[in-house]
């Protein structure tokens, strides 16, 4: 990993066309300004992680997986009674 020290008001360039400027530093927070071509996708890393995990989760869903999943849930949740957690919810779908 390249490590670079910059102060507020200073910037750096990536590939000559993406500019990242440190706008403000306050405590543990840093405010950055980014100038990049429209074709460059910019997102928070945790959004990318969430996207990948959502795609994996959706792809992993199948009727045949539910039984073994219920076993895992039963094994893992001996400490608390999960029934009390969902008692208040007004979700009322009816099975056919």
């Amino acid at each position, binding site marked *: 990993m390249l490590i670079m020290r910059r102060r507020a008001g200073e910037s750096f360039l990536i590939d000559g066309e993406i500019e990242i400027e440190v706008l403000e530093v306050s405590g543990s927070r840093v405010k950055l300004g980014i100038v990049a071509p429209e074709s460059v996708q910019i997102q*928070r*890393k*945790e*959004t*990318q*992680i*969430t*996207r*990948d*995990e*959502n*795609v*994996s*989760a*959706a792809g*992993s*869903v*199948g*009727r045949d*997986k*539910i039984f*073994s*999943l*219920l076993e*895992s*849930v039963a*094994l*893992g*949740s001996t*400490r*608390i009674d*999960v*029934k009390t*957690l*969902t008692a*208040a*919810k*007004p*979700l*009322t*779908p*009816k*099975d*056919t």
Partner: protein
Amino acid sequence: MSRIQTKCFGEMSYSQDSVFEFPNGLPGFEDERLFVFLSQPATHPLMFMQSLARSSVCFILLPILAADPNYQLSLSAEDLEVLRLSSARQPRIGTEVLCAAMVCTAGEDRPHPTVNLLSPIVLNLQERIGIQAIQTLSGYSHRYPLLARDRQPELAPCS
């Protein structure tokens, strides 16, 4: 009652009370705005978040406190606004909001099922609005193993 073709249970009927709008969609599923939430005694405590528009899109959810009894939800001002909740305080899980973790079942790269504690699904039960609320500063894992319940939450590999 309306009817819907579900991914896991074939055709089911549902009431409009169980349809939630996700104004921002979900990362990776930005176009899916309406989900039906299904729960049945046979699959308790799991819930199924079925896309209304695409029967092939369904997520399995576990109430977040079942995954981690000490889970601390922290919603940003923007999240609270989308959910139409007061910005003065955090909502109570179970009464004001339903908070659930997305489950990824075991597969080739995953020996055990995992839950995503980094990005819980949060529902305003009154307004029937939902978001996926990424917990940026929490350190919660996006791949928390469902079996190893005594382990401390891992630090997510991002900062």
